[in-house]
């Protein structure tokens, strides 16, 4: 496929991104660069100093809502994309309504219990929907431990074990690898669609 063919196919698709921290912001930017048609992004948080070690925000956006900041940044890369922002905390009651029309959902939360909540809600309410999940990316080095595995419509990107802690923080390189692996998996799903 040429890039023109890829772009013309991708512009028909919608990707939902749940959380726009380290995984979600970088994944959204990668999808924007290749020309996805529509992104639905959700997050309740504001840009914080501690986010700048890995998240796609800038110093002059500190204190501003993440969804608004990410939309601004994406528009500077690709103004054609339709971006729907939800300044909201996702829960089992609003996920289905927000993401039911997406072709793929990207799970991009930081907390394990939020990941679990999203996966369980989608398995029950949207059982056919492809979900691309990020699990295990703390620390540095060991790039080859990061993999993508498929379990029916669930795709797991990450090393599945490196949990974030004070002594094992999330950092731009490994978080970026997983975020871009999630974006790459989204492309694989969408471009192989008949």
């Amino acid at each position, binding site marked *: 496929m040429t890039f023109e063919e890829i772009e013309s196919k991708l512009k028909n698709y919608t990707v939902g991104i749940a*959380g726009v*921290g*380290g*995984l*979600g912001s970088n994944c959204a930017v990668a999808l924007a660069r290749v020309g996805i048609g529509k992104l639905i992004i959700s997050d309740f948080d504001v840009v914080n100093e501690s986010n700048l070690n890995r998240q796609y925000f800038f110093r002059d956006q500190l204190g501003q809502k993440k969804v608004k900041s990410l939309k601004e940044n994406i528009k500077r890369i690709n103004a054609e994309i339709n971006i729907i922002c939800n300044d909201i905390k996702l829960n089992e009651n609003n996920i289905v309504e927000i993401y039911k029309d997406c072709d793929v959902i990207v799970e*991009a*939360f*930081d*907390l*394990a*219990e939020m*990941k*679990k909540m999203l*996966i*369980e809600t989608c*398995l*029950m309410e949207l*059982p056919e929907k492809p979900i691309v*999940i*990020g*699990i*295990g*990316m*703390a620390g540095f080095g060991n790039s080859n431990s990061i993999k993508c*595995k*498929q*379990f*029916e419509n*669930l795709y*797991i990107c990450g090393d*599945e*074990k*490196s*949990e*974030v802690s004070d002594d094992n923080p*999330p950092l731009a390189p490994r*978080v970026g690898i997983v975020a871009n692996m999630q974006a790459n998996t989204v492309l694989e799903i969408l471009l192989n669609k008949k």
Partner: protein
Amino acid sequence: MNITLNNRPESIDNDQITISELLVLKNFTFKMLVIKVNGKLVKKDAYSGFKINNGDDVTVLHLVSGG
């Protein structure tokens, strides 16, 4: 019996096993899990009563924080 566990064939000595027993047998000691059997979600409160049979396809995802 033979089952599929996380996309791999797995032989188990019993004819039937509960999810709780499988987790002990396979050393899944983490608390934040998502489990699917034959494509359907099984919630935590059902682990001790849910029976896995020959031929079943079981997925156990272990969730850790970070993103």
